[in-house]
């Protein structure tokens, strides 16, 4: 105890110095190979992080070259990814179209949209099938989600389709759940209203609207839209019903013309209606002319 007290209390500095000198001399007197192995193990321990970092960042030039290569890969893969995304979307659309077609009783003629009207209030598209393919005026046109419009003009290899979002287009509809009948009319964008719906009729938001088939202008049962609001008007006898069209009419790329089907002749009724309308107009003109001559 006295020795410890002498060493660590009274002469601590000298004791530490002596220990350091003794340790140094001990290291100096070790055999050469023992020193080398000790230095090697200590150095590798101390410089391990540096070595790892050095292995990782082998050289600035190498990293720069790798960076350039990766940039090229990013550009290349971005384009490829974009192309594959388009393929995927097209595949999904076609799958839906195929499913739609299999479930239907109607005959569909697939068409690609090749032009779109630039007019703000006359929304129409031009498709790549015309009289040569058997297309006739009045044939209904559907997208993969529902009704889109009607063929109004036919050319040898293309046709013009008047879309639903026109003020001049009216479609007789049924509420699928409650079988309430109304007439669809365009308001703005993809929003429509259902007219001639009585105040007491059962129409609620979420109801699906389908074509009624009345007048045989459009085939019965094609989905058109979903009811988004249905409100009673206190001062009126009718109900205000807001509809959102199922088909995004501004983003049509592929459509189907309904050329025929079970118990339904595409466009025939419309043609007959058009014919009778024209005859009525001509008759009226004749009457007016006779009245003028008299």
């Amino acid at each position: 105890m006295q020795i410890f007290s002498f060493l660590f209390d009274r002469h601590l500095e000298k004791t530490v110095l002596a220990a350091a000198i003794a340790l140094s001399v001990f290291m100096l007197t070790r055999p050469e190979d023992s020193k080398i192995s000790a230095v090697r193990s200590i150095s590798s321990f101390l410089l391990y992080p540096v070595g790892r970092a050095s292995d990782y960042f082998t050289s600035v030039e190498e990293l720069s070259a790798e960076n350039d290569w990766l940039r090229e890969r990013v550009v290349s893969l971005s384009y490829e990814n974009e192309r594959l995304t388009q393929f995927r979307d097209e595949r999904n659309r076609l799958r839906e179209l195929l499913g739609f077609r299999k479930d239907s009783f109607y005959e569909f003629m697939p068409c690609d949209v090749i032009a779109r009207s630039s007019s703000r209030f006359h929304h129409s598209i031009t498709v790549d099938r015309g009289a040569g393919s058997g297309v006739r005026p009045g044939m209904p046109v559907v997208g993969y989600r529902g009704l889109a419009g009607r063929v109004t003009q036919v050319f040898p290899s293309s046709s013009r389709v008047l879309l639903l979002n026109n003020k001049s287009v009216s479609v007789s509809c049924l509420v699928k759940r409650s079988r309430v009948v109304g007439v669809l009319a365009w308001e703005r964008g993809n929003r429509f209203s259902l007219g001639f719906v009585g105040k007491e009729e059962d129409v609620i938001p979420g109801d699906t609207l389908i074509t009624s088939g009345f007048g045989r202008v459009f085939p019965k049962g094609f989905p058109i839209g979903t009811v988004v609001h249905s409100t009673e008007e206190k001062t009126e006898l009718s109900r205000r019903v807001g509809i959102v069209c199922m088909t995004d009419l501004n983003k049509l790329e592929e459509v189907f013309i309904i050329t025929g089907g079970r118990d339904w002749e595409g466009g025939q009724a419309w043609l007959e209606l058009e014919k009778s309308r024209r005859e009525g107009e001509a008759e009226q003109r004749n009457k007016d002319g006779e009245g003028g001559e008299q």
Partner: protein
Amino acid sequence: MTYLLRIVFAALVVFILQITVVHNVTAAGASPDLIMVMLVVLVIDRNPIAGIIAGFLLGFLQDLGNASFLGMNALAKSIVGYGIARYGRDYLPDNILFKGLLVFVACLIHDIITLHIATLFDPAEVIPAFFRYSILSAAYTALLAVLVMQIIDILPRRMVRSGGRY
């Protein structure tokens, strides 16, 4: 703890500079001892035990670069660290020139010890090497130490000091 880590980091940086850069800045065959500069800066205002430990560890770090004389720099720097801490604080005026002189003397003592060990106590080799290289190297190191201490004095205290010391 943060202070200790800073010292360890600084020691590693100085060691790497010593083994990579110093041989490129030799003057008339003499090169500065950066580790000695760091030792002086670290222990000049500390107690002798801290001086011995710092000297031993820094010397040992330097010895890792030359396995044949493992322990040589640890021994020399332990003694020098003790001397600087023991006499530098109590007997040296607070003047940068005296500190430079202290570094110069410490380098000479360090070289005397290392030269004796490296030449296996052969005076015929120690004396010429001492006069040829050691004095010049000591002057070079002292000059560098003065410069470093002046720069440290300019830096904010919190950045380089702990408890009023470097």
